[in-house]
């Protein structure tokens, strides 16, 4: 393909705003190996046909060869804290019921009654058994058949053959994954470098502080890809430029053929390189102080100290270490600056984006919705550290559902983040509409070599998974 032999430029910096990799090297703490690691994957750069985002046959292919065959993020352990708790995980038209069946044992059952098909679990619920609301067929938590009313009328039903069918379940760091393919290799292979990189973050020591489920009028891949790059910040989030290292973001991909992982690191408390060599560091630092302070009403907001030995980034990081240390009775003194303030987001194929570090500890999940490739669901949660000092584990926030035509700003618990999400959301239906209107010869994406390489990688893996 013409142009693809050209050298890849690994980001764009300014005097005021160095590349993310440079900032991490200048950190006040030695960054853990995961943060210093770089990926080596290079995409062959095949073009992505726009029909992938709306073709019903393609969505059907995904349902059969992707969602029924791969490890995928379903929910968190704290969503179902007690034995007998269950929650649905619904991907397109397929749905599973994830049940806590023991202190640390989980099972995933197909969410359909073996009598006449009724969905068994609509939302978070609990009980000692699973009972269908239609005729009360009932199963034990281990999936074995417990009771059929008017048992005499079902002589053909052998109890041993009427256990609820299951998918495989794997857990890591408090996250629960499922794979409907019973012959699949264990989860650990699909996690790739994640387990190693997240050791210092301990995702299992966190709880869900808010949890949003948003319906979107766009294909699930359109939504996912809107969150895989910081290239769109300059246009879509222009009000964040004064304190966001968008163009200086570092992108990495690790792919050993089984684990398909990518990452971006977008620095905070630095001006966008687009603002030029003379852009104000003081403004960048002050805006970052203020953004973090929004989560702590009443706390006095520091300002940039030009006379300090510490860089602006280190000042924000140090303040966060102290505030979070006091607030949570935990010790953050060895956590590097980048892990305290930057946006560090990983992606595991096909639907899982766990963020690393205290900067913005979000988790994204992207899912098709029903059988319409023009619609999808994006789930967003914030995972906060569990308080130390023997305090009890706070309960998981309930899921707030936001409809197609509702905005994130209907969720007061997420504060100013709602504006950022609503900016992203405003693009998505427009993308979905536009890509169907493309001239036939131009119905492909044109992706950036560096900043959009995670999207290239995603499609490489998707093609291979679908046998294309």
């Amino acid at each position, binding site marked *: 393909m013409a142009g693809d032999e050209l050298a890849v430029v690994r980001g764009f910096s300014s005097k005021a705003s160095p590349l993310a990799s440079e900032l991490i090297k200048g950190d006040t703490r030695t960054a853990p190996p995961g943060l210093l690691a770089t990926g080596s994957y290079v995409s062959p750069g095949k073009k992505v046909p726009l029909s992938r985002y709306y073709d019903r046959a393609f969505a059907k292919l995904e349902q059969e060869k992707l969602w029924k065959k791969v490890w995928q993020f379903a929910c968190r352990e704290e969503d179902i804290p007690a034995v007998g708790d269950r929650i649905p995980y619904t991907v397109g038209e397929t749905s599973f019921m994830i049940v806590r069946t023991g202190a640390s044992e989980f099972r995933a059952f197909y969410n359909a009654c073996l009598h006449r098909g009724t969905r068994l679990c609509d939302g978070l619920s609990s009980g000692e058994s699973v009972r269908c609301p239609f005729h009360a067929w009932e199963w034990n938590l281990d999936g074995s058949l417990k009771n059929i009313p008017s048992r005499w009328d079902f002589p053909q039903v052998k109890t041993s053959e009427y256990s609820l069918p299951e998918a495989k379940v794997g857990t890591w760091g408090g996250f629960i994954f499922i794979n409907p393919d019973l012959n699949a290799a264990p989860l650990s292979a699909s996690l790739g470098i994640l387990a190693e990189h997240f050791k210092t973050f301990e995702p299992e020591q966190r709880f869900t502080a808010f949890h949003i489920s948003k319906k979107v009028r766009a294909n699930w891949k359109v939504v996912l890809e809107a969150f895989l790059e910081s290239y769109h910040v300059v246009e879509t989030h*222009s*009000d964040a430029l004064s304190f966001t290292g968008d163009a200086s973001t570092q992108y990495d991909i690790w792919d050993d053929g089984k684990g398909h992982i990518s990452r971006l690191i977008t620095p905070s408390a630095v001006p966008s390189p687009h603002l030029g060599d003379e852009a104000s560091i003081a*403004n960048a630092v002050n805006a970052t102080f203020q*953004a973090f302070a929004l989560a702590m*009403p009443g706390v006095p907001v520091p300002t940039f100290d030009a006379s300090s030995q510490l860089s602006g980034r280190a000042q924000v990081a140090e303040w966060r270490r102290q505030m979070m240390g006091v607030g949570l009775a935990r010790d953050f003194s060895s956590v590097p600056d980048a892990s305290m303030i930057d946006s560090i987001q990983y992606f595991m194929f096909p639907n899982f984006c766990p963020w690393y570090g205290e900067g913005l500890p979000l988790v994204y999940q992207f899912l098709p919705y029903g059988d319409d490739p023009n619609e999808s669901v994006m789930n967003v949660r914030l995972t906060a550290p569990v308080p130390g000092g023997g305090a009890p584990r706070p309960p998981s926030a309930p899921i707030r559902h936001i409809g197609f035509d509702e905005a994130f*700003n209907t969720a007061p618990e997420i*504060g100013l983040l709602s504006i950022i999400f609503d*900016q992203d959301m*405003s693009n998505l239906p427009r993308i979905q509409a536009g890509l169907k209107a493309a001239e036939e010869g131009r119905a492909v994406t044109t992706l950036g070599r560096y900043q959009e390489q995670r999207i290239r990688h995603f499609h490489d893996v998707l093609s291979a998974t679908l046998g294309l």
Partner: protein
Amino acid sequence: MQSPAGKSGPDSAPDSGPDSSSKPAFVGIAKLADLPEGQQLSVYVGLKKVLLCRAGDRVFAMRDMCPHALQPLLGSKVENGVIKCQKHGATFDLVSGRPTNGVTNAALEIYAVNLRDESIAVAVR
């Protein structure tokens, strides 16, 4: 760019005050002297950014966020009582907030302004 003053906590929803049914009160947010003719000023009021535009004797106040793609309006052209967003060209009537072209159907949030004793007071909803 100015940043959130953080006067109210994250508990207050960006789009609706604690009680949006009652009339919002006028709050002084700038001095007339700081806003020369033809100039604009963006000021945080709680979590909301408010844009003040002076055109002759009049001061218009609106949310500093274009409803098209939720971008800041600061720096956009004001002419004949209409503001034209510099991003993708949506135009809004500065009295009603209604869009005057087809870029978006959504209206711009407009706030009542009170000029008294050289101070600009705005009723932010």
